[in-house]
């Protein structure tokens, strides 16, 4: 990156199981306006808008027709990324780094309470080879989990410990509307959704909206910026599960390496202070530890058991509670980004990692972690 970018303001909705009191466009407007207010800015201070949203989750073709202006785009240069919300940060950063733009308003959302997620996952699949198998997030995760468990002889109760850690963290996060802590025993008592994955080992769908104001010109910030974006990387794997090594996130390894190189991170476990990882399942978090080089391959279970990734550990992972506590399906990566900004600015009420200076945010989408984005945030 030619220069670090400054996060001028952030906002996020409460993450809820359903939001009957508000239309999605109303929530989008409220949160976009809140991010501007957090930055001490108005819409006039923003020269472009980047949004990330899913037509299928939003329940209409070209859903940005209705929502783009709610997100502040009226007569602005706006672009919609049809990838996970974290990719909206990547797209906005690319725009700002061209030098053609100064300040972006970035908004992403999901309202899964108004759609049938499993039905959407099934139509995500190609109709020839994959759809007849009924491949979904749960079943693709199960295939991945089975491969990983077998290869590294992962103890069967270990993923439950990831869930217990994140749900305990989530119970202290005031932005979660139903922050129920669960124990490892609760997880192990939950039903198998797709063997070996249990219901509570999968992310918990939640409605949510997140928004960020990002600028390349620190002088434009009306207040002290929350954080600097100093590194990013993103990459995809192939689509067919059969062509991939399901025991590792190869694309995430590439994305992480690129982001680390930009910042000069060589020992991520010790140099990062906090990580917000796309724990779309307990297995996603464990496998991400390895792709992020927090530990060697096959050692994620041991890293977890050591307590290194718990609150108070060397590198707390998902102090917010992660997606296992609340998963705004398409926008979860932007939520991770917002949480990291709150951490390095000391504003992560109830879930603050003390003295956090460097944070890693992760976005993930696709069957068994096909597509990844990584962003490194540092205190100002």
């Amino acid at each position, binding site marked *: *990156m*030619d220069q670090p970018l400054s996060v001028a303001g952030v906002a996020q909705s409460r993450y809820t199981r359903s939001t009957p009191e508000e239309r999605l466009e109303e929530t989008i407007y409220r949160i976009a306006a809140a991010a501007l207010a957090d930055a001490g800015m108005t819409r006039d201070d923003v020269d472009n808008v980047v949004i990330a949203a899913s037509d299928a989750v939003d329940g*209409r073709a070209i859903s940005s*027709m209705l929502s*783009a202006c709610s997100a502040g785009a009226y007569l602005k240069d706006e672009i919609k990324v049809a990838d996970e919300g974290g990719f909206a940060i990547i797209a906005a950063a690319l725009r*700002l780094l061209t030098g053609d733009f100064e300040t972006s308003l970035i908004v992403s959302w999901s309202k899964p309470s108004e759609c049938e997620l499993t039905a959407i996952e099934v139509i995500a699949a190609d109709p020839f080879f994959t759809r007849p198998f009924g491949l979904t997030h749960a079943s693709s995760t199960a295939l991945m989990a089975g491969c990983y468990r077998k290869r590294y002889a992962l103890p069967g109760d270990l993923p439950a410990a990831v869930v217990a850690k994140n749900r305990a963290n989530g119970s202290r996060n005031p932005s979660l509307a139903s922050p129920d802590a669960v124990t490892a025993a609760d997880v192990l008592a939950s039903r198998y959704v797709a063997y070996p994955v249990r219901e509570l080992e999968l992310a918990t769908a939640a409605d949510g909206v997140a928004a960020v104001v990002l600028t390349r010109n620190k002088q434009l910030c009306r207040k002290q910026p929350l954080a600097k974006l100093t590194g990013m990387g993103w990459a995809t794997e192939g*689509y067919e599960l059969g062509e991939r090594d399901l025991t590792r996130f190869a694309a995430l390894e590439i994305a992480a390496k690129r982001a680390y190189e930009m910042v000069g991170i060589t020992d991520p476990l010790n140099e990062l202070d906090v990580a917000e990882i796309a724990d779309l399942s307990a297995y996603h978090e464990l496998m991400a530890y390895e792709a992020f080089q927090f530990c060697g391959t096959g050692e994620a279970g041991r890293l977890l058991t050591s307590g290194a990734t718990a609150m108070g550990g060397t590198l707390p992972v998902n102090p917010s509670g992660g997606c296992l506590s609340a998963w705004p399906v398409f926008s979860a990566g932007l939520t991770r980004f917002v949480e990291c900004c709150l951490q390095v600015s000391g504003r992560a009420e109830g879930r603050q990692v003390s003295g956090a200076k460097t944070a890693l945010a992760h976005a993930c989408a696709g069957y068994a972690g096909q597509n990844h984005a990584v962003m490194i945030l540092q205190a100002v």
Partner: protein
Amino acid sequence: MARKTAIIGVGQTKYGFKSEEMTWPELARLASARALEHAGLTIDEIDAVVLGLAPTALIGVHAGEQWAAGAVGAVGKPFMRINTGGATGGSAAQAGYYHIASGMARTVLVVSAEKVAESEDAQQVIGSAFDPFYERPFGLNAINMCAFQGLRHMQKYGTTQRQLATIAVRSRANGMRNPLAHLHKPLTIEQALATRNICYPLKLSDCCPRSSGACAIVIAVEDVVKRVCTRPAWIRGYGARTNTFHMGDKMGPALDTDHGDFDDLALAAREAYRMAGITRPEREVSVAEIYAPFTCSEVAAVEALGLCPKGQGGPKAEVGAWDMDGEIPVNPSGGTLCSNPISATAQVRVCEAALQVMQDAGDRQVPGAQIAIATGIGGSLQFHTAMVLGADM
């Protein structure tokens, strides 16, 4: 525009309704391979990939970008999907530019693909874009929404159905010289005026077909361009504007922009011209590839691009100002009226504009084209993109 960037390769498939012999990712792959060949690069020399894909209900696979990752050579690389409705291809080209101009990549492949025949009825899919509470019950769709724009233009400026018909006639004549065009069927003014009414003032010949097909471009940074390409299409300027979804807000005393006029496209074009240093577009633009799915869209667009004064789009078309031998050739490719691969249509405009300034447009070449402008429109005529390409830096 701190870093100089250019399009160094263009690839397109033949546009047609069904393209039965290929799946959607295969269409994307074919266009990508052709763009790489045109650029003289291999996929290993590409740093990042951008995919343009609009409503996925048209291809029937919601996560089309994930499906196509391998087909477009993105595996192990940065990969991003853009969706701004009909403007998708224009936005994808701009996203490709961001990758290079930001310094984050040196070469990028931008590919947009459509296989509309996988859906029963494109209008049904596009109709689901409208608000379920207030608008969907009226049967609002892409055709009548554009007809409203045309009607308003007629009301404001006296534009006639005959003027609109001349646009269809010219587009079809141009399409005859484009071997990739979907509609290869000449049209006379009498035939055009005799086609059935679709939605007043639009007759059948005023409407685009729905097409399948794909197109791709390779964009590179200056030093790569100079190493591998003798006739690049330099990206000289670009712009985009998003307007309100609600068409009623673009009429009446409180309007900021007029639904009949494409004032929003004018804002995007003004930005693109500013970057390109163009102050007299009516003299400086050599050729325009305009996203005009209906004849009445072109009338408003040529005015918004400053190729003629407001209200003159119809009369100018009628006297042949935009013909191949006219003042400024508009849509030498035959335009969207001959091929409309929805996700790809706005990028087709960029491809054709690039070919013109590369002097590589075959039988549809505008001799000596120096400056070309390409546009895109999406949503309820609310997402607008413009890109200016030049033979010189």
